[in-house]
């Protein structure tokens, strides 16, 4: 997993899956990278093959962190299964989905 950070934005790259196996680790790693000035957390999910409920829990937790500093979480280029899970759980309304 890689991070690209600017003063207002942080980009997370290289996640292959977000499940119970790594959800807690991802959450902790990303949280440590967030700075008070960050307004946007972009997570590139173009390579994610599996996103389970634990992974969703991580995304929600990160969303809460960003909300506390008036920021947001954006899911970048999600794979179909990621988009499907987000829609099924209606979290697509909470987490902004963007494509580039």
């Amino acid at each position, binding site marked *: 997993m890689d991070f690209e950070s600017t003063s207002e934005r942080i980009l997370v790259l290289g996640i292959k*899956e977000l*499940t*119970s*196996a790594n959800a807690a680790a991802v959450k902790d790693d990303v949280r440590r990278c967030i700075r008070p000035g960050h307004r946007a957390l972009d997570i590139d999910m173009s390579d994610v*093959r*599996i*996103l*389970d*409920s*634990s992974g*969703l*829990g*991580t995304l*929600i*937790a990160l969303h*809460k962190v960003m909300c506390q500093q008036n920021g947001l979480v954006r899911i970048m280029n999600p*794979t*179909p*299964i*990621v988009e*499907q*899970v987000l829609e*099924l*759980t*209606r*979290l697509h*309304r*909470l987490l902004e989905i963007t494509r580039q």
Partner: protein
Amino acid sequence: MRREVLPSFFVQFECDVDASITPIARVMAFLENYGFDQTECGAWGVAIQEGVNNAILHCELDENETPHPIAIEVMVRPDYVEVLVHDHTQGFSWPISPSLPSESSEDGRGVYIIQQLVDDSDYLRGTHSNRLILRKNRTLPSELKEEEKKWRDRLKTIESQLDETDKALNSTQEELFSCYESLSAIFQFGTELGKQGDIKSFADRLLKQLIPIMGANGYLFRTCDENGSIIRTYSHSSDSLDPSPLNWNADNAKHFLESKSIVIRKDILRDTDLEKLEEGDPLIAFNSKFIQVHPIIIGEEMIGVLSVGSSESEEPFTSAQTNVMHTFAHFLALQLINVSRQEERIEFGKISKELEIAQDIQASLLPSKWPEVEGYTIAGKCNTSRNVSGDFFDVIYHETDPDKVLLVIADVMGKGVPASIFAAIFRSLVRSSTELFEHPAELMSKLNRSMFQDLSGVDMFITAQIAYCDLRHRTMRISNAGHCPLLLTSKDETMPVTSHSPEGLPLGVVKRPELEELEIDVPKGVRVLMYTDGIVETTTQMVGNELLGQKRLVHWFQDVRSVDQKASAFQSSLEKLLRATSEDQLKDDQTFILLVENG
């Protein structure tokens, strides 16, 4: 039918989230290999992951303080995919309609996600293990569906071919078994036949054995009569199956199955539901759905026809059953022929015995002793080409005057028994007409009158020659009815052999024949030869396999006339000439009489 072999996958791993990554990836790769796209594989990955998460979350330790392993089982079916996740937890109640937690909740979505990603799910709790069942209908891309359909069709074709092979093997097995059955039955009954020899009851028992083997409800076995145009019932399974004799000519072959089968010399199988029997067909009595008719032919000879009916089966007779029917019919036909030939042999033996008796009787009618006539010797012989003969000769002495002798020789047209009967009648008539001995032409005329009707009634005739010899007065009166001439010569070498054949038609040809009577002088040292045509028509090696002929016979007579011997010596010489025949079997009877004056 064969069971379809469908793809499946099984993996077991430690109850640990890190240990679950690779197995789940392998499940997804397995599905991808079977044509599932990335989204479907991902959905299955998520659903399975959620199931595994629950198993890990609620896992228990075994007696060794080690968590029980988790197993994933995947089965790909034509219309759906089923995944089982086996866990060893206390389990939990599977919610029927789980709801989503609030958006801010970081957990509690697992079961909801599972139920949204699959079409059907259930959680079965057991004593020691539980099973999460996930099922999702397949939605293959159209090109893959086409490909799958193609392979599925091909698989069905192969399965169909395998089924056909199975059937063929079963049929062969059944056929072999049937052959064994039929051979066994035949050997068993063959042994019985040898003991009892009753062919009719043997046929009944043998064919009754055929009914259960054929799954039949009746049989009818009919044999051809001697002239071969009519079949008559020989054996049947019930009295209701005993039809009248049937002519199997071409006209009947158009209407009746048995006649048709014999005429075309082939089996006929009739489904009477599809094609009813014609009115009057004897096989209607079967009252059967299927009727099999088999013509029985040995060599070129039509022996008969065997018909079998089946009313209970919905299927026609199998090839194995038909083979058994053929085997039984052929075997039975051979037995019938054997019995018939045995009867013929017995009958032939009887006839041979009767012919031997007839031969003895006929031989007893011929002169066996030659009474002394002073100064003369007489000899005669009748060689027959069969047991009994149509040739005949007789030497009759005057009752009071031993110098008067009647020489009679005759040849009935034809050979064998009919000819011998007329020869016997001829002899009796001659013997009973002593008053006419001195007048051979009158005697011959009387013989014709007596026998004309009988002979002409059967288109037969007799050639005969009668010579009345008055040896004291040295005269001879001859009458001839179409017979070979009498040869006469003398010991005197200057006297040629003369042949004497007065005019006269054979007996039985015309009602009142003109019969000439010839009187000739008997020279001193006379030699007389009377003979039938079998003598001159024999072929002899002494003359190069040509007919002996009258000319050569005359030459022989001329050569031997001067020999100072008795008639028996002349007989031996003539027989030596005749024995040189080139054939063992005489073509015609050979008969002759010799009268020889001594000195």
